[in-house]
């Protein structure tokens, strides 16, 4: 298990190198001089040149890139924000925590609602209930998140005065962003749960359970659900990425001081150190969370324990062939 985790963490290195290289490349090919960006439109050419020299922008791109990577590796230095001059890391960490709370809540809401709807539509397949669930989940998936956000604000803040429209000054402020990001992922969870439930309910061991005289509700809860949850749990990792992506837009709408808003603002301000640092830190966090999710599958599906502990998935396909 430890070997597996270490291996997964080592995978982070090429991922992060890739992410940083792409953003770094984007930074260098897009027009607009960072030095002028910092100094403002009215700075003289000499000042701009001096700033370029100070920032090392006159060095070859590769040198700049290596210097950047070196800074991260040796001192966790993600550079300073062009806009505020503060270290990017110290700006991101508190925002990351805010985003994490919202994303976590959103994933829980999305998964809970999605799984519930998925179970309903699987158990009531081809009935009006199934169609209704499909309509509801497709609605939340197809309507852009910011539209849902504005409608939610309209309902809960403007008309009902239940929740604050923007900001996170009280705990109520978290509800709408969580709900909004969560609801957009409901469709995904519903679809996966439904198909996975239907597949599981058609499995022989469900028939075995029925042959034992077990009731349908017990079969659903004790036999089908846990098996059906395996693909759902796997999709949590993917959804987390989506939730963070959705968070970028919604944090802007809801005025949430999170990483998403930070990166979006930094993009519009062409604040590359912040964009780069934000993207890298998100990539890191996502990879680690995906690792945690993967490891937690072992708790759901005992079959994985052998594959993971014995060091790799290589043996798994072989086994499957034999079983078939």
């Amino acid at each position, binding site marked *: 298990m430890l070997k597996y985790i270490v291996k997964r963490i080592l995978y982070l290195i090429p991922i992060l190198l890739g992410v940083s290289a792409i953003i770094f490349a984007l930074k260098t090919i897009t027009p607009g001089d960072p030095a002028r960006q910092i100094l403002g439109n009215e700075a003289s050419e000499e000042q701009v040149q001096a700033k370029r020299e100070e920032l090392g922008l006159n060095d070859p791109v590769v040198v700049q890139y290596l210097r950047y990577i070196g800074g991260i590796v040796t001192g966790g230095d993600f550079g300073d924000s062009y806009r505020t001059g503060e270290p990017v890391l110290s700006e991101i960490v508190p925002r990351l925590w805010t985003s994490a709370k919202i994303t976590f809540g959103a994933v829980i809401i999305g998964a809970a609602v999605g799984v519930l709807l998925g179970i309903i539509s699987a158990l009531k397949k081809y009935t009006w209930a199934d169609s209704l669930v499909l309509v509801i989940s497709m609605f939340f998936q197809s309507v852009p998140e910011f539209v849902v956000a504005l409608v939610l604000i309209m309902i809960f803040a403007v008309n009902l005065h239940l929740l604050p429209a923007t900001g996170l000054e009280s705990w109520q402020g978290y509800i709408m962003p969580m709900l909004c990001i969560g609801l957009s992922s409901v469709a995904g969870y519903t679809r996966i749960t439904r198909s996975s439930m239907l597949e599981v309910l058609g499995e*022989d061991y469900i*028939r075995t359970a029925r*042959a034992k*005289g*077990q009731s349908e509700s017990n079969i659903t809860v*004790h036999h089908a659900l846990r098996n059906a949850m395996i693909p759902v749990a796997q999709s949590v990792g993917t959804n987390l990425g989506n939730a963070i992506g959705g968070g970028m837009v919604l944090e802007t709408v809801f005025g949430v001081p999170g990483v998403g808003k930070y990166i979006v603002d930094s993009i519009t301000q062409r604040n590359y150190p912040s964009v780069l640092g934000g993207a890298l830190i998100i990539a890191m966090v996502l990879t680690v969370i995906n690792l945690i999710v993967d490891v937690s599958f072992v708790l759901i599906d005992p079959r994985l324990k052998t594959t993971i502990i014995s060091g790799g998935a290589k043996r798994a396909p072989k086994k499957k062939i034999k079983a078939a």
Partner: protein
Amino acid sequence: MSDNLLSVRELVIHYETDEEVVEAVNNISFDLKKGEILGLVGETGAGKTTTALGIMGLLPPKVANVISGSVELDGNDLLRMTDRQMRKIRGKRISMIFQDPMTALNPVKTVGDQISEVVLLHDRCSKAEALRRAQEMLGMVGIVPERYRDYPHQFSGGMKQRIVIAIALACRPDLLIADEPTTALDVTIQAQILDMMRNLQKENGTSMILITHDLGVVAEMCDHCAVMYAGELVEYGTVEAVFDHPKHPYTEALYRSIPSLDKDVERLHVIPGMVTDPASLPAYCSFADRCGDACGMCRTLDPKVLDLGGGHTVKCLKYTSKWEGKTDGKTESA
């Protein structure tokens, strides 16, 4: 009548979809005495499993419909029971073993849990007691009882089938329906499993319906034998009667398709034609189109079940007085 544990009468089961109606089981009747083993043989698609699921009340809902007939267990019609009543019977009075042990066990639950589940459902006892019973059952089917904490994927195919049997027998059911219990297993394991099943059956006095397409298994295990073709029971009788004096041309053809060690045959006999499509059964004898003995009458009349004496029944026009075809068809086959 009183010593009949199970009595199936004129059972008709259809699968209905938007496109077609599949007449899976057509008007079959048979009895099973206490402690007896009935072999249900036939080709794939003959309706054996449907019959078994019909008895269990486990037919897929909405799609499968019991059109008519009765399935009486100790004189009580199972088909008229509510879901709740049926749940009390399943696992307790009638158990079923399915074909593929690889998929019949829940991969995320320990085998101990899966065995004790049925005990907890039907016998009033504590969880610990149920687990003890599970270990006992594991021992009975030849698995180290301490392995009750293991998950199904940690067992081999044969062992899994033993566990399935342990589940089926955990509540000492009166009737065990085994649907091709050994088909998915290695040949060497098949014999072990069958031996074990017969021993357990004898010990517990359980009645059994053994669904198989392996006539050898039937000969070895069963008291009675029922041959199914296209959802119909074409021949029924004691194993001795059916094996020694097969009456129905289909039964005869089945025997000819068994490889024999004594005879030096170059090629196995193959029954000509395809299994009759149960979605479009003819109005006449459904075997007529493949039957070597068929005459014109066979393609106009649907035969009735005839009792040839001693409980040996056959559904063939050959044994009616009206028969006008070649009666020496039997000698030809001998």
